[in-house]
């Protein structure tokens, strides 16, 4: 298994509060990705990183920001959570020598 963890694994928060999800890898992979999974939509890319301090938007980036200050950590922040951001969030990593991405176990976020 790829060395990738996510924290927290579950979180319930209220509308309007800030939330930060953490993805941590021990593989020293260059690329990291944040996805959300919703019924009927599969997985959709939120943001991705191609190196320390290098990030870019995915297809559903509104309402989310990311930061990557170290190779091993990729943070996803919801500045002001909304009910539409209730979802399961997955982090993935890729080393750049192939196109396969390896996923973490996910974080289930509920915004009430």
């Amino acid at each position, binding site marked *: 298994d790829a060395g990738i963890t996510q924290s927290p694994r579950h979180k319930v928060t209220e509308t309007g509060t800030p939330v930060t999800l953490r993805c941590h890898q021990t593989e020293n992979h260059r*690329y990291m990705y944040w996805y959300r999974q919703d019924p009927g939509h599969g997985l*959709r890319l939120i943001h991705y990183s191609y190196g320390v301090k290098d990030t870019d938007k*995915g297809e559903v980036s509104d309402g989310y920001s990311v930061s990557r200050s170290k190779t091993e950590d990729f943070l996803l922040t919801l500045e002001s959570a909304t009910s539409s951001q209730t979802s399961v969030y997955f982090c993935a990593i*890729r080393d750049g020598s192939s*196109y396969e991405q390896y996923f973490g*176990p*996910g974080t289930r976020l509920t915004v009430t």
Partner: protein
Amino acid sequence: DQQVKQNSPSLSVQEGRISILNCDYTNSMFDYFLWYKKYPAEGPTFLISISSIKDKNEDGRFTVFLNKSAKHLSLHIVPSQPGDSAVYFCAATPMSNTGKLIFGQGTTLQVKP
């Protein structure tokens, strides 16, 4: 605007028989395709992939077929086992440096003993 589509939300097959999962795409820039398997409460796991220069790739019980002219790919599982019961996602990428994947909606496979 769904660029990768899995039109069958679910599939049920008998143990030992063949499972065929289908995936269609619309973007002609896609040239690398992947299949992932996902169990409940776990992250997706990579299963098998295929480049557009090939039309078939095989790995044990799993074979992926690519028909570029029809913009269609399929995953064959032979023989199907109860442990194969999961959600299967196909994904596509244009083989750019970013490696961004576009996923289909998923197909839930149930293999009955």
